[in-house]
């Protein structure tokens, strides 16, 4: 547990020293979502329907683009190898790193999502559901993404490759995340979707740190 807190603290400190990384991801998210109305036209009804999906897809891509930061700096300066050698559980370290990725790359998106939702004309209730679904769903993205990031560590063209590996695995999260908002606006209630998102979160909390730790060992052998 101590190692978890230590890695979180250290990585957060490092992230705070380089705020531009956080901001880049955030603005990618905002720009990406703002492109859609320009592409499909300003029809309010259409935008209202597309809104949740667009925000979710933008969050997915923004999260995926920032996956490279998860391990690359520690890999480049050799810290990661020390972490592999240390007697603490590597899975816990990975979990901590995924948590920091979530805090630095995705929490700001969640905070900005209502603003984008307003651009798409979502109702207040839909905005709350959007926030809730993003809060539960985005940690899954960080966790699943950590597997892809550790497998592609140090490879040429790793950035494109990670999208091929990770995006298909993101699909269930996207479906239930965007689906939650749709369900609530159509009067079905979002609880079912949010519960499944929660189940996905629990599952990935249990399974992905171990898988990503194994992947790190493979990549650094």
């Amino acid at each position: 547990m101590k190692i978890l807190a230590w890695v979180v603290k250290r990585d957060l400190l490092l992230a705070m020293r380089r705020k531009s990384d956080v901001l880049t991801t955030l603005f990618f998210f905002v720009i990406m979502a703002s492109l859609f109305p320009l592409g499909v036209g300003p029809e309010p009804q259409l935008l209202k329907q597309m809104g949740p999906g667009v925000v979710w897809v933008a969050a997915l891509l923004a999260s995926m683009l920032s996956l490279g930061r998860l391990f690359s700096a520690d890999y480049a300066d050799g810290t990661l190898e020390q972490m592999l050698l240390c007697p603490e559980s590597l899975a816990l370290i990975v979990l901590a790193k995924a948590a920091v990725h979530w805090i630095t790359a995705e929490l700001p998106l969640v905070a900005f999502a209502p603003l984008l939702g307003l651009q798409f004309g979502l109702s207040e209730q839909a905005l709350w559901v959007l926030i809730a679904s993003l809060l539960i769903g985005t940690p899954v993205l960080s966790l699943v993404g950590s597997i892809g990031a550790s497998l592609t560590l140090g490879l040429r063209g790793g950035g494109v490759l990670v999208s091929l590996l990770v995006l298909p695995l993101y699909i269930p999260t996207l479906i239930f995340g965007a689906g939650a908002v749709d369900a609530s606006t159509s009067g079905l209630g979002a609880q079912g979707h949010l519960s499944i998102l929660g189940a996905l979160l629990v599952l990935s909390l249990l399974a992905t740190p171990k898988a990503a730790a194994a992947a790190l060992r493979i990549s650094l052998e």
Partner: protein
Amino acid sequence: MSKVNLYKFSAPATFYGLAGQMIPGFAILSAILFAAGLYISFFVAPTDAQQGEAYRIIFIHVPAAWMSMFIYVVMAVYSGIGLAFNTRLSAMMAQALAPTGALFCFIALFTGSFWGKPMWGAWWVWDARLTSQLILFFLYIGFISLQAAIEDPKRADRAGALIALVGVINVPIIYFSVKWWNTLHQGASISFSKAPTMAHTMLAGMLVMAVACWTYTIAIALYRVRLIILERERHTTWASEILGGAK
């Protein structure tokens, strides 16, 4: 077969020979079965009352779809064995199977859209099965490109194995989420599940074609694994003898 034999043939050098002996049998069998299957499907099987001649595409479509899913599972099993017991050959088999799996996946999607156009009036609908087949295709592509991107064969094997295992855990999750998504989006009005009962000859044609696809897969995977073995073992004496002889 006794255990000793299995261990013996898990060595690439001995398996190379065994695979070489097995390929002609499976290849010939597959050619015969394809010929028989195509004959049944084009000349013996009756024209469908509702769908006319267009239904005949299922004779390749359904076996291809079966194979694409089955091969992924086999790949994952080989990957699991490879990771657990550190056997090089298992990873090579997984690598040899992947392109065939992706090919069958593509055939299933391609023929499906050719069937969909006259039947549903659309090349593509976001039906749960179509969508999950498409995602399976993406998973194959991810596996293949990850392996291709890594230079070191040992790392490529193990990284590929891990992503195959992660993928196979995800396949049911993806399938059910897509299915649920699809039923919530009223959209697709077509369902595969209430297919009309088939005539016996149709079923026979499909099964023969399925076995033909199986034998084809075995033959081509063994062929490919032989090439992979040679490439990986080119520095060994036995392999360089074979390569020298081939020149």
